[in-house]
């Protein structure tokens, strides 16, 4: 248990996760980037002592990539399991990160696994795998991305119970920064105040806002001895915008917090 990844709970999500796992329910986690979705899953896997199979979904990911394929080895065809099949065989948590990024037909293979059948039919080999009780399917996605050609099919969505994540409250975020990096509270508070100022610019001047992850990065730089305004510029301003004028304004906000 000493290797439990740090995770600051902000509600009843830990309890819900455990209940879902006990009852063999698949889970969907949605929330903006860098708010702790992946960390939460890693934390829960460690807590429940389950192996974690993570698949970062990308737009070329197909059902075959998840399930497996035939390979040619020494003039023979050999079946090779994909990560999803492996997770079903071994039990444990299969975590599909950013699942909407995958091609639309991909998510359909999840359907028989995600309802009460809990099976994975592999049509190429004719095998039908039944998931052991320890198997749990967790998917995550970021509803903020205006990915126009992508979205999740309602038929897929309705097989999951859903947890909505958002950026933590100011006090929790301060606790996270201290817990992650060990910076002092004053500094953590200032970083969080900057982040919240930037978050007010969402949908208006910034497409994506400062995530907790970026704040942790900034805090790490400062902890390492980096000058605070410089650290914030590198970790926050330049990461969030390419527009020079917006960057100037964001820097002003940082100077207004740390400035001389």
């Amino acid at each position, binding site marked *: 248990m000493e290797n439990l990844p740090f995770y600051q709970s902000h509600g009843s999500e830990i309890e819900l996760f455990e209940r879902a796992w006990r009852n063999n329910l698949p889970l969907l986690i949605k929330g903006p980037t860098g708010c702790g979705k992946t960390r939460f899953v890693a934390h829960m896997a460690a807590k429940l002592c389950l192996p974690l199979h993570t698949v970062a979904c990308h737009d070329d990911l197909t059902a075959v990539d998840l399930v497996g394929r*035939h390979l040619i080895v020494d003039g023979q065809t050999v079946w090779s399991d994909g990560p999803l099949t492996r997770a079903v065989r071994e039990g444990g948590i299969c975590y599909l990160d950013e699942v909407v990024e995958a091609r639309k037909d991909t998510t359909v293979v999840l359907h028989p696994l995600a309802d009460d059948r809990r099976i994975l039919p592999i049509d190429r080999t004719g095998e039908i795998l039944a998931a052991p009780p320890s198997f749990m399917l967790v998917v995550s996605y970021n509803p903020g991305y*205006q990915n126009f050609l992508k979205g999740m099919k309602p038929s897929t969505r309705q097989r999951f119970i859903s947890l909505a994540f958002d950026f933590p409250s100011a006090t929790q975020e301060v606790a996270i920064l201290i817990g992650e990096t060990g910076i002092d509270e004053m500094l953590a508070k200032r970083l969080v105040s900057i982040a919240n100022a930037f978050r007010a610019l969402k949908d208006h001047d910034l497409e994506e806002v400062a995530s907790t992850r970026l704040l942790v990065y900034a805090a790490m730089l400062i902890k390492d001895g980096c000058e605070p305004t410089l650290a914030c510029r590198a970790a926050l301003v330049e990461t969030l915008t390419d527009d020079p004028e917006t960057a100037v304004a964001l820097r*002003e906000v940082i100077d207004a917090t740390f400035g001389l």
Partner: protein
Amino acid sequence: MEEYVGELWHKLVTRVADKQHAEAAVSLDEMSKTAAIFFRALGGDAGLNLSAAPSTRHGARRGWRDRLATTGERIELCWRDGETLRLPEKIDIFTERSLNRDLYLWLVALLAANVDDSLPWIVRNQKATQVTLERFPGLVARYRRLINALLPLRPLPTSLPAAEAAQEAVIRQALIQPGSIHVLPPSKKQFQPVVLWTHPSPPMSANNKVSTSDGEPEREQSEDKNGVKSRKKHAAERTDMPDGKDGFLMMFRAESLFSWTEYINVNRPQDEEDDVESAALAAEDMDTMTIARDGETSVAKLRFDLDLPPAGEDDAPLGEGIPLPEWDYKKQIMQPDYCRLQELVSQQAEPCELPAQLRRTARRLRSQFQALAPTRTWLKRQQDGEEIDLDAWVLQEADLLSGKHSDSRGMYRAQVNQQRDLACLLLADLSLSTDAYASDHARVIDVIRDSLYLFSEALSATGDRFAMYGFSSLKRGNVRFNRLKSFDDRYDGLARGRIQAIKPGYYTRMGAAIRQASALLAAQPQRQRLLLLLTDGKPNDLDRYEGRYGIEDTRMALHEARQLGLRPFCVTIDREANEYLPHLFGAGGFAVIRKPEDLPKELPLLYAQMTR
């Protein structure tokens, strides 16, 4: 000679008296974007516009040099009302440029602070200062620098008569130690304006002080109830602050009557003409012009309505007209059936071919866009893929068996899948402002027409479903929605004829048009639906549909569109669009085309990028 000497004298004394530092000046133009984002980041209302504050008379004691030169009696201070954030057009108070810049940012931070507006001016400003410095400790040092630079520029209390000296001492104290002063002692003479604080009595609220607390005057109400008299008063009040940018009211004295014809900016009066009948009545007269003169204030107000063309010449209406709601942001309510939208189709349109000058571009676009058409193909001999490429494998095995050298080629097949399941509705602004010239030889409407042509050419090559409509409006009873091509129409000669027949007219009631377009688009079965808005300016109409009201209604209509699962996107040629489009469409939801003549070429490319 007399004149010459006078001029010399003027130059001399103004130079002596001029306390400003032109070389260190910072202008609002260079600061506007930074200031706006800074304001929002510090928690300011994102719906506010940024605009230059008109200078106001401060009535404070001036030095003998100033009195001699009649300068220094006006000053630009900042304030905020329900629609606008007003900042000085330039700041050149300090000798150092960085201080002048800091003052801008300080004022923005001060205005972003949420302080009870009903507090007395001096308390309010101290409170705002305290709140701001507490939230943003990095500003403390900056504030100190500003105070240190400002205090030497203010009159010394010892140099003033007793009452004014007491006031000045109190103000100094309040600046140095915010929160320490609770009342401003009275004095006959106005105190020296405090540039670090907000305007003590912003011009807009000056006349309404009795009825409303501060900030935004209840314009519409007072006008509706009190009728002509109060309207005139209002007009007189507005003369104090001729608004350079928005220019919705035109003030002139009788002798300048002849110049009105040159005035392109269409007048948008303040009064509410809500009933549909008055709009219909207006349609009977051509170019009505009402001039109201007010003897007392020698200010007159010019209005002219644009009238609907006689029924015979107008586009043919389709159906009865559709009632649509409108959002009132002040009351925060949706007003049901508030607008009537009429779908029209041009009668004069005759089938035609693509204009000759566009054919080359169209051909190129077509071939480019055909690549986007849906295909589903298997690629052979891939290093990686879903299936084994049996042919390749057999060939390789055969090569090996026969002893031939075989380079290991890919033995898998991969499927390339380009599904396009999308519908697009293009909504073009056909208001009168598109009659303006966009470049030396083309009006905005011509640019829009070319864009529509090329857009249709490109989309018909991809096979995506698309529709095109144009819109304009004349008050809420006449929202005109011109059908150019519906989803079910083919893109043919007739559709081209309708595009050819578009003409500019009337105003821009965006909300209603967007609602109707959303409804049409939402009825499409495609999974991805794009609502593309092509415009040249802000929403506005002849009644109160302008400024924040129009913006907020449009915003609400776009919000509804998103709720319906549509994706709105705006393409504009309005260079000032950065001020209000982020509020409506979000940071990634619009594109500003700097050179309008590029629009026809840019539009299809934008579409391709968006849907790739």
